[in-house]
């Protein structure tokens, strides 16, 4: 991609928006301890930090989703209080979240003008809505999207553009974007670059939350680094280097997160073997995991990591290739079949795929047993309290509804549910997403304990430190195919460049 353009001239030393001393707690747990963030007009400002550093919370405070417990927000030097996302939008502060705020059944123009439809003589001026939307799309160089298309028929990238157009039509002065490239392919990332530069040229400030260094150095004028709920430092992009940035982000504490491999853990024979498997989303997947081994699947979001898990687990089964467990070929067509073959899957999205939220801790723990082995699982059920104790679950009781538990405790319930089935292979899809440090630690300990018992683990993660800290081998995916394999301890840069498709190894004709 083209290198960053020099900072625009209209950049003034005064901040468009200044967030000072922001403090925010959840459930008595302080996640932001006085964070400062200043963004100038017409600049692209990166907010970086590891997952859990507090970036998302800062963004949501700026968007008016949360209100800070302490601290102030100044817009053009005037203190503001966004009680509601609408208040933030009216002030020109808009946010493009990862979960889109769009109506799939309505057109692009209807979405762009939702809640602010232009009216002449009492009737909506659809023609104006369509022309205005088309004009904005054209300005962004997006003639390909029609203002009249149904949003549900657009790709993720196109929907993101609709969100940006929506923000622009509201005369946004600042647009924040949460991991905007997470679900985009290379071509689409290029498109987003161009749009961000267009926004900048219009004098819009962009807050760009990302942990992809390349994008940050390509696009952003300034960078603020967050770590453990505090803002560590701000840089002008030309004054820093990727190395320095990573050091600031990561600091020293980080290697201590991960428990070391127990010396008693031995690599056993291959327990999971996938050969040349594929379906409509992934292709040519060859993968082997041995007993006692943790293999990580790395790759950008949308690269096919979760699709491999789903293919393996029979949710969207593989249509090609073969799978063997403990050397025995298996044909898995459903989750039930997968469980019968000795697989377990801790899904990416706990709340929609992992838990029945209105049911008790106990009911969730025994759900798989109830579903698959309705009789004769009494002895296993007796293990539940002990198992939960070893995972350090804190709850009001086994009969507490899991929706009242914190994310970390919910994840422990999901883990317990699968451990009770005595799996041979466990697939962990984003096992520590959205959970606190203590719970992460418990998950990592559990993983080590499982490998000690000879279980094979296939881990999917977006957090590179986690992959580096836990995996024995790292398999990198790019655009639905394997991009290569890396040994334990490979560095983030190598993984990233492979995941973005810039470096390929072995897979000669694999990707374009």
């Amino acid at each position, binding site marked *: 991609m083209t290198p960053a353009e020099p900072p625009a001239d209209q950049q003034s030393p005064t901040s468009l928006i200044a967030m000072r001393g922001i403090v925010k707690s959840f*459930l008595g747990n302080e996640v932001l301890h006085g964070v400062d963030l200043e963004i100038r007009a017409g600049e692209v400002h990166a907010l970086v930090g590891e997952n859990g550093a507090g970036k998302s919370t800062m963004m949501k405070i700026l968007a008016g989703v949360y209100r800070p417990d302490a601290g102030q927000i100044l817009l053009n030097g005037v203190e503001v209080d966004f009680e509601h996302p609408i208040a933030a939008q009216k002030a020109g502060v808009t946010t493009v979240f990862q979960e889109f705020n769009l109506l799939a059944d309505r057109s692009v123009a209807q979405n762009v003008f939702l809640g602010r439809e232009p009216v002449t003589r009492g009737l909506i001026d659809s023609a104006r809505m369509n022309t205005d939307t088309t004009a904005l799309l054209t300005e962004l160089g997006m003639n390909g999207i029609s203002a009249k298309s149904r949003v549900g028929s657009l790709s993720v990238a196109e929907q993101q553009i609709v969100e940006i157009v929506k923000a622009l039509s509201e005369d946004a002065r600042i647009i924040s974007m949460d991991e905007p490239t997470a679900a985009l392919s290379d071509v689409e990332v290029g498109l987003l670059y161009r749009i961000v530069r267009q926004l900048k040229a219009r004098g819009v400030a962009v807050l760009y939350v990302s942990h992809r260094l390349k994008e940050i150095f390509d696009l952003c004028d300034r960078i603020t680094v967050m770590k453990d709920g505090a803002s560590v430092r701000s840089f002008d992009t030309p004054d820093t280097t990727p190395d320095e940035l990573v050091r600031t982000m990561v600091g020293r504490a980080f290697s201590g997160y991960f428990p070391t491999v127990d010396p008693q853990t031995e690599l056993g024979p291959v327990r999971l073997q996938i050969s040349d498997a594929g379906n409509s989303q992934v292709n040519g997947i060859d993968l082997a995991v041995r007993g006692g081994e943790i293999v990580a699947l790395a790759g950008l979001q949308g690269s096919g990591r979760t699709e491999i898990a789903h293919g393996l687990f029979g949710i969207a089964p593989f249509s090609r290739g073969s799978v063997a467990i403990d050397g025995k070929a298996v044909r898995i067509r459903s989750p039930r079949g997968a469980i019968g073959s000795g697989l377990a899957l801790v899904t990416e999205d706990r709340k929609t795929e992992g838990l029945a939220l209105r049911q008790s801790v106990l009911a969730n723990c*025994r759900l798989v047993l109830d579903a698959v082995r309705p009789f004769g699982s009494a002895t296993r059920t007796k293990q539940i309290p*002990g198992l939960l104790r070893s995972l350090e679950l804190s709850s*009001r009781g086994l*009969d507490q509804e899991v929706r009242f538990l914190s994310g970390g405790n919910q994840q422990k319930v999901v883990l317990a549910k699968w451990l009770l089935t005595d799996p041979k292979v466990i697939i962990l899809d984003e096992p520590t997403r959205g959970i606190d440090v203590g719970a992460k630690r418990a998950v990592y300990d559990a993983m080590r304990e499982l490998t000690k018992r000879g279980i094979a683990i296939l881990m999917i993660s977006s957090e590179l430190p986690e992959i580096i800290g836990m995996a024995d081998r790292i398999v990198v995916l790019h655009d639905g195919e394997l991009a290569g394999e890396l040994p334990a301890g490979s560095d983030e840069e190598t993984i990233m460049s492979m995941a973005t498709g810039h470096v390929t190894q072995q897979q000669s004709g694999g990707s374009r």
Partner: protein
Amino acid sequence: MSTPVITPDLVAAKPEFGRRLQRFFASGTGIVLALLIIILAIIIISNPSAGAPDTLVNSLHKATPLLLLAIGQYFVIIVGEFDLSVGAIITTQAAIAATLLNKQDEGTYGVIALMLVLGLVVGVVNGAIVALLKVPSFITTLAMMLILIGATNLWTGGGIVKGALSDEFRKFGRPKFGIENVPFLGTISWAVLIFIVIAVLAALLIRSSFGRVLVATGDNTKAAGFAGARVTSVRIIAFMVSAVLATIAGIILAGNTSSTVDLSIGSGLEFEAITAVVLGGVLLGGGKGSLFAAMLGALTLYFIGPLFRELGISPELRPSVQGIILIVAVAYAARSGSLRRRKGPGKTQP
């Protein structure tokens, strides 16, 4: 109501009695139980003889069809669906019984077996259309209602069915047949015994593995499926339970009514059943609510009739009061539910 808690050290002690009581009354079971007790108290105060054990058993007898329908509807609602076809099933089954039996005792049990099989078939069809063809259950069972009522009218010519129920058949519905001369209680009818057996079976079923999978499917179908549950079969079975219990309710109701069968016999009962279940605090949309409370809801609904009789209120006003109770009870549950939700996470121990 809750599962026996094995209290490991990581689990905080049970909340104190007062809080639990408070929670109970905020729950559906608490509301409906209080309502039932109040209604019964008013009835008995204004007419002490209504409180006699044998009279109460007789009341229970009359309430059995609604109780059975409520149990069946509970299984469907807990899995997140509706069954609007139960009233039509009752009509159809009663018409079949009257037409096929034509007052002859022999063949009664064959006809009953046939009716149960037909009930199963209707349940399977309802469930399969909902679970496999993804047609909303509201529409599916509404259409099933049209089809059954239409077909029954077509077959019998409408109005009062030609033919009549046999005496043997009617034994299951009439209050005087059953275990006679029980001390204090008088005759315990076959209908009451059937209800007790079914209630116990239903309670066992809902507390079994299947029951937990059923409730979890209603709560989160995707998560249940990912946990290996056969979510399609589970939903079909729920509709089967509902249709079969509607059939049994039809046998009792038709037998108790008269030896002839009027095709209006089942009309509106589907709404009564849903009302009963919802009155018991069971969440429309699935995943939460107790079977016991649904039965209490059915009893409450039944006793509104006697209440009006005792107080000398025009029975025409009954629907209005029923409507108000329904709305107020559900609004109250929605309010207390949201209060708990707002407070809930804050109280979780870190």
